[in-house]
C-alpha cells in the first residue's frame, strides 16, 4: 500500500509539478533561442497571472463564470505585459552587450515585484474558491488540480510541438534561432518573430500561474521567483534553446522534487538537490541533455 501510494503520488504530483516547470521553461528557452537573451522577468509574469486570477475569482461573480474569465484575463494581461517588456526594455538593447541585457532583465523582475507590492501589499493574497478537492485512485488521494495541470501540460506540449514543427511561422522561428542574418535575407521579419515568441512564452507563463494557484491558492510579490529559477534550471538541464529539452528538464525536475519531498531525511534539502543536479549536468554535459553545440557565426 505504502509503495503504491509513493509511486502513484510521485507520478501524479511529480508530473504535474514538472509540467508547471516545463511550461515556464519553454518560455525561457524559446526567448533565449530566438532573441538570445535570458528573460529573468519571466518568472514574475507567473506572479502577475496569479494575482489576476485571485482578484478575479474573489469578485462576487459565480465561480463558473469567474474562473474561465480569470484564466482568459490572465493570459491576455500576461501576453500584453510580456510584449510590452520586450518592446520597452529589450528591443532598444538589441546589439548591446549581453551583460547589459541581463542586468535589464533582473531590473524588470524587481520592478514587477515592487509594483505588485505597491498594489497588493506584502501580505499574501488568498482565495478559498479555488480548492478543487481530491478523489481516490486505488485508495490513494489525488488532487483534481494535479490532473488539470497534467491535461493542460499535455495539450500545451502537443500544441506547441505541432506549431513549431508544422507551421510556417514555427519553422521561421527555428530559422531565426539558427541564423538571424540568413533569416532576414529570406524576408523573415525578426522583430515580429521575437514578438510572437514573447506572446507564446507569456501565455504559457499565465497557464503555469493558473496551475500553481489551484495547487496552492496564495500569492505574494515573489510568487514567481522560485518557480522561475527552477524552470530556468530545467531549461539549462534540458539544453537551453531546445523546446523538447525544456519539457524534459521540467518534468525531470518536478519528479526529483516530488521524490525528495517524500523522503523525510532529505526533504529539507530538496532545493539544494535540484540545483546540484544543474551543477552536475553542467560539468558532465555543458550543453544540457538536448542542447546542441552551435558554431558561433560572425
Amino acid at each position, binding site marked *: 500500500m505504502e509503495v503504491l501510494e509513493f509511486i502513484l503520488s510521485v507520478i501524479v504530483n511529480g508530473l504535474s509539478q514538472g509540467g508547471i516547470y516545463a511550461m515556464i521553461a519553454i518560455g525561457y528557452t524559446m526567448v533565449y533561442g530566438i532573441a538570445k537573451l535570458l528573460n529573468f522577468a519571466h518568472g514574475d509574469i507567473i506572479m502577475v497571472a496569479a494575482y489576476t486570477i485571485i482578484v478575479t475569482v474573489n469578485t462576487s461573480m459565480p465561480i463558473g463564470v469567474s474562473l474561465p474569465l480569470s484564466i482568459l484575463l490572465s493570459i491576455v494581461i500576461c501576453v500584453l505585459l510580456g510584449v510590452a517588456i520586450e518592446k520597452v526594455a529589450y528591443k532598444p538593447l538589441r546589439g548591446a552587450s549581453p551583460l547589459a541585457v541581463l542586468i535589464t532583465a533582473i531590473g524588470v523582475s524587481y520592478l514587477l515585484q515592487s509594483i505588485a507590492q505597491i498594489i497588493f501589499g506584502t501580505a499574501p493574497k488568498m482565495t478559498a474558491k479555488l480548492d478543487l478537492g481530491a478523489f481516490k485512485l486505488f485508495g490513494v488521494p489525488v488532487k483534481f488540480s494535479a490532473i488539470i495541470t497534467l491535461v493542460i501540460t499535455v495539450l500545451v506540449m502537443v500544441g506547441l510541438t505541432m506549431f513549431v514543427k508544422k507551421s510556417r511561422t514555427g519553422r521561421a522561428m*527555428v530559422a531565426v534561432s539558427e541564423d538571424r542574418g540568413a533569416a532576414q535575407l529570406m524576408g523573415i521579419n525578426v522583430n515580429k518573430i521575437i514578438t510572437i515568441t514573447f506572446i507564446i512564452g507569456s501565455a504559457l507563463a499565465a497557464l503555469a500561474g493558473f496551475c500553481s494557484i489551484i495547487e496552492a491558492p496564495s500569492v505574494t510579490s515573489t510568487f514567481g521567483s522560485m518557480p522561475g529559477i527552477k524552470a530556468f534550471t530545467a531549461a539549462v538541464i534540458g539544453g537551453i534553446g531546445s523546446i523538447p529539452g525544456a519539457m524534459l528538464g521540467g518534468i525531470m525536475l518536478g519528479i526529483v522534487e516530488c521524490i525528495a519531498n517524500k523522503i523525510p531525511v532529505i526533504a529539507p534539502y530538496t532545493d539544494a538537490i535540484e540545483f546540484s543536479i544543474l551543477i552536475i549536468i553542467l560539468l558532465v554535459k555543458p550543453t544540457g541533455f538536448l542542447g546542441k553545440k552551435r558554431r558561433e557565426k560572425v
Partner: protein
Amino acid sequence: MALLEVHDLEVNYGVIRAIKGISFEVNEGEIVTLIGANGAGKTTTMQSTVGLIPKKAGKVIFDGNDITKVPCHKIVHLGMTQVPEGRRIFQELTVYENLLMGAYSIKDKSGFKNDIESVYERFPRLAERRNQIAGTLSGGEQQMLAMGRAIMSHPKLLMLDEPSMGLSPLLVDQVFEIIKQINKDGTTVLLVEQNAGKSLAISDRAYVLENGEIVLSGTGKELSESEMVKKAYLGG
C-alpha cells in the same frame, strides 16, 4: 536600364573604413561580378547593399526605388535576394523546409508547388533529399540548396556571394553553369567571387575591388585580358 545602382557606398567597422565610397550598377539581364582578394570588401559591399550591415553613407537604388534605408527583411519582397557567403542554409531544417523559408516573402501561396517543382527539376539532388536535414548535405548540395532557396523568392536580381567557395573544381564548373542558366531564364545576377577566371568568363561586366575601393571596371572580356587583372587575380 539599371536595375541596381549603388552610389558612393561607405561602410565602417568601428574606426576601420572597410568600404571607401564605391559606386557600381547592374543592368537588367546582366551578369555583373565584383572580383577582389580576401578582405577587399566584397562581402561587406553585398551585405550593406541589402541592409544586413549598416551603411555609413551612400545611396542604393533598386528597380527605381531608393532602398538605402529599407530594412533587410523587406528587400526580398522588392525582388532582390542574396545567397550569402558560406551558404548559411538552415542546418536544422529539412531541404524542403529551407525552400519553404526561401518562399517566405511570397504572399500568394498558389504558385509554391510549381516553384518548388522547378527547383527540384533544376537541382535533382535536392529532390532526392527533400526530407533530409540540410545540415547533413555535402558542401556542393548545400550550395545548390542555398541557390534553390534564393530562387524560391522570384528575385529580379540574384546576388551570389562566393558561390564557388570550398567546392571541388568539378562542382565549381557546375555552379557557374547553373548561374549562367538562371541568368538565361531572365534573372539578373550580381556575383562576388575570388575565382576571377571563371566568373569573368560568364560576366557581361565586372568591377575590381581593392581595399574597399573600385580600382578597375569593364566588360568581362576586357578585364580578363587586362594586364593588371591577369597579374593579380589570374595567376600570370
